[in-house]
């Protein structure tokens, strides 16, 4: 600034430079000073500064100290957890209207202090638009008011821990906090360094707005270990995380076995395709690229995919538009050599480097860089380094462009550019990402959900769908809290079951030779791959039958068959899926008596009870058949003009480990949900009671369900669970089984990420049906829960003028 004041009018008249950007931080400074530049933890409606705690210095861009925050210790965690329980009680006892009122007054408080908040975000170098945050608050004010109308039969989870990584934005943080609060949970926020100060300010603004003390506590930290400690606290009911993949994985592993559901949104640094088709308005597309790819702090790493026929035009325009650009600051000086190495490597692989200015001497700066003509295998595409780099690759046809766009473990978002409506909608369908922007990019609105596909997350944030992350059906029991067992993650499920030996105790007498059952893999009935089988015992302990002892290879074969047919099943109209499910119900109706007898023989139920279960199963299948074609997506109303769609998509291949109780009903309930949504299913029947499921194969085969969409594999539960957990194609596992199994899945399924629905059912419990889920209930909330487990949401933006 010192030199700039001496610039004469004539100098500027000649150079036509913009002049310095003036930004004041006076308001935020004075807020910090009012706290003596040492912010405590925000617990129970007040700032508390426990003595003898480590502190963390928060610095601005130039490295100057702004203030300090407290690094919470164990005592602070338990203090905030008990405060949250008090807060939860007060907050959840309020009526919907009263909660909405608090939200409303928080919204106006936010607007009043928008200057302070904006400056604060600017100071900690994670700028965010306060108007977007205000819109977020307004949106969830509505849901706070409407909770009981739109989600009857659901209750809040309880105390929710919101953990974020350092690179998570304030918007993403509030996208977790606000819906959770709106439906009546109490929250403990464990912010990262970019969000600590704004989160503390928001905590105090919420308190001023009338939020009961303790309903929102903000506990600042040094590193992620505090988030793990909070999650392990027995007073917490669920954990949700937003941020980068590495820390999310760690959080998931460290909380395995604690009996706490963890949902992850791994959007930070996701790699997203930016696809320009030849039918695009190239200039607007290039504007979009310039706007989004070369920011100091970008949400995502874009990979530019350009159709060969317009490649030259895009390159020429990029060159021209970049010509006047200056170097951008890197997040850390240490990033410089990583960026340089990546550029060099791309160059060695034949990429053409486009930079508007030479490399600066300052280590903290780097010029905006386009790497033209890299291959999809180049490390800068697979794992883009931090900094203003944009890899650019070409494709020949629209189909190939989409294949390149999909060929990535990430599934956060994509931006596609074309003036051809049909191409746009077809592309939207085939991109496996949570958000598709047509002729636009990086626009958000809370009414459209943000969800990650594949490695980008296993939950849905925002929209009406996002509320259900923080609710559970009042009728379904929460996962009981537990302490982790010592599970050997390497050996879990690897002990082969003992095959029956001739003349062994399990051999039946010659009088009544037990039948040997076959399993269903890829539409064909077959023995297990290993050829061995295990004995199934009747309630009286005698050998009832032999069933295949399936293993790793059987799961593999089933998944291979499933991914072949699943796209076709998904593509079928909901109407024909519905018809197929009706035919399954009809086929079950025909074999009702056989199934009842199979149930009776296997589980020892009275024939009357078994018949009732078969009846219920038929009706449940009809429920799903009916639901299937009625539950479509919707068009959202937005503040911007244009169309925005929210579409339900199947997850892909779902693995289901079935419970021991309600053998048939649980099977058809889960199968129906998964199939109705368009998934393929690999099912593992109860180890103890597999026969009804194996008898069900006949029912399946005489229905219109396509071959291969459903596989049923029997055998050791742990063994098969282990096999499913280690198959990356499988997108979700629904598990009823041991605590050990739950712990194993939570530990294993964070990389590659799967969505998990875990239920702990202790073996050796009573044979009765009193415990756990009552499958006979068909309350709408229970069905909706299953449907939501089977579905992921895709948001599509089609802005128009």
């Amino acid at each position, binding site marked *: 600034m010192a030199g700039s004041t001496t*610039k004469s*009018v004539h100098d*500027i*008249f000649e150079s036509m430079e913009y002049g310095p950007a003036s930004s004041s931080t006076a308001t935020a400074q004075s807020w910090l000073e009012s706290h003596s530049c040492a912010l405590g933890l925000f617990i129970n409606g007040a700032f508390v500064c426990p003595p003898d705690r480590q502190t963390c210095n928060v610095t601005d861009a130039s490295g100057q100290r702004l203030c300090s925050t407290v690094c919470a210790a164990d005592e602070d965690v338990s203090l905030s957890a008990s405060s949250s329980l008090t807060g939860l009680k007060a907050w959840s006892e309020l009526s919907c209207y009263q909660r909405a009122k608090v939200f409303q007054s928080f919204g106006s408080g936010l607007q009043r202090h928008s200057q302070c908040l904006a400056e604060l975000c600017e100071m900690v170098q994670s700028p965010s638009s306060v108007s977007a945050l205000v819109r977020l608050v307004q949106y969830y004010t509505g849901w706070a008011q409407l909770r009981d109308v739109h989600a009857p039969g659901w209750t809040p989870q309880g105390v929710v821990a919101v953990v974020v990584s350092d690179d998570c934005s304030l918007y993403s943080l509030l996208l977790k906090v606000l819906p959770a609060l709106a439906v009546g949970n109490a929250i403990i926020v464990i912010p990262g360094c970019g969000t600590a100060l704004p989160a503390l300010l928001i905590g105090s603004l919420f308190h001023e707005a009338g939020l009961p003390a303790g309903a929102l506590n903000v506990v600042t930290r040094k590193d992620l270990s505090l988030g793990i400690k909070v999650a392990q606290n027995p007073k917490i009911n669920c954990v949700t995380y937003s941020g980068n993949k590495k820390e999310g994985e760690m959080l998931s592993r460290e909380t395995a076995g604690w009996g706490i559901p963890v949902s992850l949104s791994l959007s930070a640094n996701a790699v997203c395709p930016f696809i320009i088709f030849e039918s695009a308005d190239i*200039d*607007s597309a290039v504007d979009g690229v310039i706007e989004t790819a070369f920011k100091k702090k970008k949400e995502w790493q874009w990979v530019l995919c350009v159709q060969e026929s317009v490649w030259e035009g895009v390159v020429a325009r990029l060159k021209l538009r970049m010509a*006047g650009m200056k170097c951008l600051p890197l997040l850390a000086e240490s990033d410089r050599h990583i960026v340089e190495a990546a550029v060099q490597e791309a160059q060695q692989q034949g990429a053409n480097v486009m930079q508007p200015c030479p490399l600066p001497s300052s280590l903290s700066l780097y010029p905006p860089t386009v790497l033209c003509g890299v291959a999809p295998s180049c490390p800068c595409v697979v794992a883009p380094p931090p900094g203003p780099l944009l890899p650019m690759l070409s494709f020949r046809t629209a189909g190939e462009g989409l294949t390149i766009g999909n060929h990535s473990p990430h599934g956060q978002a994509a931006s596609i550019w074309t003036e051809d409506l049909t191409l746009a909608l077809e592309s939207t369908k085939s991109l496996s990402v949570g958000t598709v922007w047509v002729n*636009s990019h990086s626009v958000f609105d809370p009414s459209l959900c943000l969800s990650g596909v594949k490695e980008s997350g296993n939950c849905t944030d925002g929209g009406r769908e996002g509320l259900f992350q923080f609710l559970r059906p009042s009728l379904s029991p929460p996962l009981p809290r537990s302490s982790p067992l010592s599970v050997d993650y390497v050996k879990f499920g690897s002990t082969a079951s003992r095959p029956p030996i001739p003349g062994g105790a399990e051999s039946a007498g010659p009088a009544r030779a037990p039948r040997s059952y076959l399993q269903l893999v890829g539409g064909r009935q077959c023995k297990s791959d290993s050829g061995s089988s295990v004995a199934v015992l009747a309630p009286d302990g005698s050998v009832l039958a032999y069933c295949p002892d399936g293993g790793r290879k059987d799961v593999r074969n089933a998944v291979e068959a499933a991914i072949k047919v699943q796209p076709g099943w998904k593509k079928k109209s909901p109407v024909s899926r519905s018809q197929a499910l009706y035919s399954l119900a009809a086929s079950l109706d025909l074999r009702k008596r056989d199934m009842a007898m199979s149930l009776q023989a296997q589980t020892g139920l009275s024939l009357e009870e078994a018949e009732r279960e078969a009846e219920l199963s038929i009706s449940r299948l009809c429920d799903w058949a009916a639901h299937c074609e009625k539950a479509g997506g919707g068009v959202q109303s937005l503040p911007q003009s244009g169309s925005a769609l929210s579409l339900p998509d199947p997850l892909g291949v779902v693995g289901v480990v079935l419970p021991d109780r309600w053998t048939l009903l649980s099977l058809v309930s889960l199968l129906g949900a998964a199939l109705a949504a368009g998934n393929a299913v690999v099912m593992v029947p109860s180890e103890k009671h597999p026969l009804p499921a194996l008898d069900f194969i006949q029912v399946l085969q005489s229905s219109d369900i396509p071959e291969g969409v459903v596989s049923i594999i029997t055998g050791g539960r742990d063994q098969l669970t282990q096999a499913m957990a280690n198959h990356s194609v499988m997108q979700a596992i629904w598990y009823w089984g041991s605590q050990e199994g739950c712990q194993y899945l939570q530990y294993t399924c964070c990389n590659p990420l799967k969505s998990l629905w875990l239920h702990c059912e202790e073996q050796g419990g009573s044979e009765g049906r009193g415990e756990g889920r009552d499958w006979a209930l068909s309350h709408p909330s229970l069905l909706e829960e299953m449907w939501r487990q089977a579905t992921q949401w895709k948001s599509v933006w089609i802005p128009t003028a």
Partner: protein
Amino acid sequence: MSARNPGMELDLEWVSKVRVNHQAVLKRAQQIQGRKLPKKQWQAAWHLRAVTCIDLTTLAGDDTPSNVHRLCLKAIQPVRQDLLESMGMHDKGITTAAVCVYPARVADAVKSLKAANSSIPVASVATGFPAGQTALKTRLEEVRMAVEDGASEIDIVINRTLALTGQWEALYQEIRQFREACGEAHMKTILAVGELGTFGNVYKASLVAMMAGSDFIKTSTGKETVNATYPVAIVMVRAIRDYFLRSGHKVGFKPAGGIRTAKDSLVWLTLMKEELGDEWLRPSLFRLGASSLLADIERQLYHYVTGRYAAYHELPMA
């Protein structure tokens, strides 16, 4: 003026491939309007730059030699001498880029400027301005006569009938003939964007006008209901960029109509700087067609120098 645009063969395939996404253009325009504008001496310098790009215009039925004379003298001394002195700009040749009048007033303007010993070019509108609904023959004759009278820049209007019915070949030929009639005089082609219907048409008309050898493309006559808007300007400057990329020739841009405030002029300069770069911030490639804009800029400069807001009578009238 830089090297003139010689034009090129009409490339109809290029014209037919044009695609413009309406909402993306609007968004880009919002973005540019949302940029922080320069302050303090930066603002003063930018305002002065805007002054040098103004085509000071009077296009009214009641124009007479006396008000054209006043306009010419204002063009020579657009900002009060003492204000320029205190900014150190009095000896930097600050004048407007041109004066712009009807063909019948060209002789008056040339005379006034000559008498004041100024080399400011006189621009004349022509070709049946503003509607262009006269016979081609009379439109061509009008151009020739204005050039004979001493106009060194001719602002022609295109035949909207041809553009709207997609007769690009015919439009190209007409503009070619105008260019020939202009001779040495620079040709600015007015697209009358308010009457072209869609952004796609604006883009296509811009391309055809440039292929036919226009030195400038200009948004509007100032007589349509919709004049120079930022979104339409973005479409036109993109066409200029596109043409430059293919042919290597730089074509200028002139928004006209409805540009009244000093702040508008800063946004226009920002738009040019962002979209085309610093080269398009000089009168050789950028003009602002305006009449009342100058008064507002002068008041802003008065405020910059003195810290007070001027009454209109404190600044010389045009």
